[in-house]
């Protein structure tokens, strides 16, 4: 029984995508029909630097199993410097989550340009696979949100 449920485990994945590069990259993946699991749901933000660590923890609190942040490649930020700040913030946050024992495969940052539909799709496939292998997030959830 437990093995069966494990096989059917479908992770909840939140992807924050910056409007200018990564969201467009996801659009391109769509128009190129490059599939990735439906477990990924995208939230559009103006820039990767808009993503507050509170959003990421919030997602885990409410039952997300993985959170990925996609932004423009360093140097290509539409706002010129946003992703540099995001990079530092996320590096520190992920390091902290790792430090308190949250599996580091549940968080990821990937730089995806508007032209990288393929990269978007492969990244999402990889990430979902990784999170699936880690199983349900139990270390950072609020139990009250379970059904």
């Amino acid at each position, binding site marked *: 029984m437990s093995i069966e449920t494990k096989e059917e485990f479908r992770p909840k994945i939140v992807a924050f995508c910056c409007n200018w590069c990564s969201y467009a990259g996801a659009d391109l993946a769509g128009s190129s029909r490059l599939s990735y699991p439906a477990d990924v749901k995208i939230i559009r933000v103006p820039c990767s630097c808009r993503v507050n660590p509170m959003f990421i923890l919030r997602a885990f609190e409410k039952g997300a199993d993985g959170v990925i942040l996609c932004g423009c490649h*360093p140097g290509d930020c539409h706002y010129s410097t946003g992703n540099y700040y995001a990079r530092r*913030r996320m590096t*520190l946050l992920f390091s902290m989550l790792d430090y*308190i*024992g949250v599996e*580091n495969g549940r968080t*990821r940052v990937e730089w995806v340009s508007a032209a990288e539909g393929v990269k978007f799709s492969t990244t999402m496939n990889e990430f979902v696979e990784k999170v699936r292998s880690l199983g349900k997030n139990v270390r950072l959830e609020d139990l*009250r949100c379970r059904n």
Partner: protein
Amino acid sequence: MQELINRAKELLADGTVARVLGWKAGDLPYNPEPAYFEKEEDFENFVYNGFCGANLSKYMIEASKLEGKTLVCLKPCDTYSFNQLIKEHRVDREKAYIIGVGCKGKLDIEKIKGMGIKGIESISGAEITDGADTLTIQTLYGEKTCSYADAMLERCHVCKGKEHKIYDELIGESKETKDAERFDSVAAIEAMSPEEKFAFFQKELSKCIRCNACRNVCPACSCRKCVFDSNKFDSSQKANVDSFEEKMFHIIRAFHVAGRCTDCGECSRVCPQGIPLHLFNRKFIKDINEFYGEYQAGEDTDSRGPLTDFTFDDVEPGIVAERG
């Protein structure tokens, strides 16, 4: 201490300062409280000894709003906090007259009690001028002794040094108390398996009662209204109803002070449940040092903090997984 009192009275008398922010002796041998002294006779209760651990920088936020200058007694480590507050425009340098006071390590009454010493009536050896490295404690259950070093706060074992980073004048000698490596405790946790790390923090944080002492004593947590008290993020919960919230609160608090925390150790000192909260802040400091170069918040008043700065070739967040 007498020199300090005399000088403070002098500055009060000649109108240089309108008040003095120091410590007032408590009704037990170990509980002096931060206090203002405005009149000569107030100084009767003025005290400065090993139990004056409180970092008075935080009180300067309010004191900066008062008329006239406030004389504030700052220990070497407190001056880092003061600098950081200047950088953030939270205190007014012009409203402060800083006397850098000497420090030979501050004492942790919890540690003394932890040694099984109870019913304390009096303690000797805690005076700043005492050369002794042993405390002699009279209790209802007999006389006890313990070494000064064993009774010191954790932060004093990893002291940042005897130097005051900002002051108007200095009174008193300081002593080197550092006898441990600052990041050893963090490194020890880093070396654990994810399961051990999780178990460790789960256990520590399960004690948290969300009293907010750590936050309210923290000089970096100087927000007029904390995000955890406002509805801006829909994050106001008041109590750790679920174990998630302990983590959320402490991670976010540490993140908000990352790059601003001077590692003054007040959070760990005041936690009623003895949670080693500095392990969060120090982890960020260690990471910042490793990833972006050595940085000590409060070293100066104008450098750019690591989270409001970047370089083009900063490490990628993937480093966390690569380090394993």
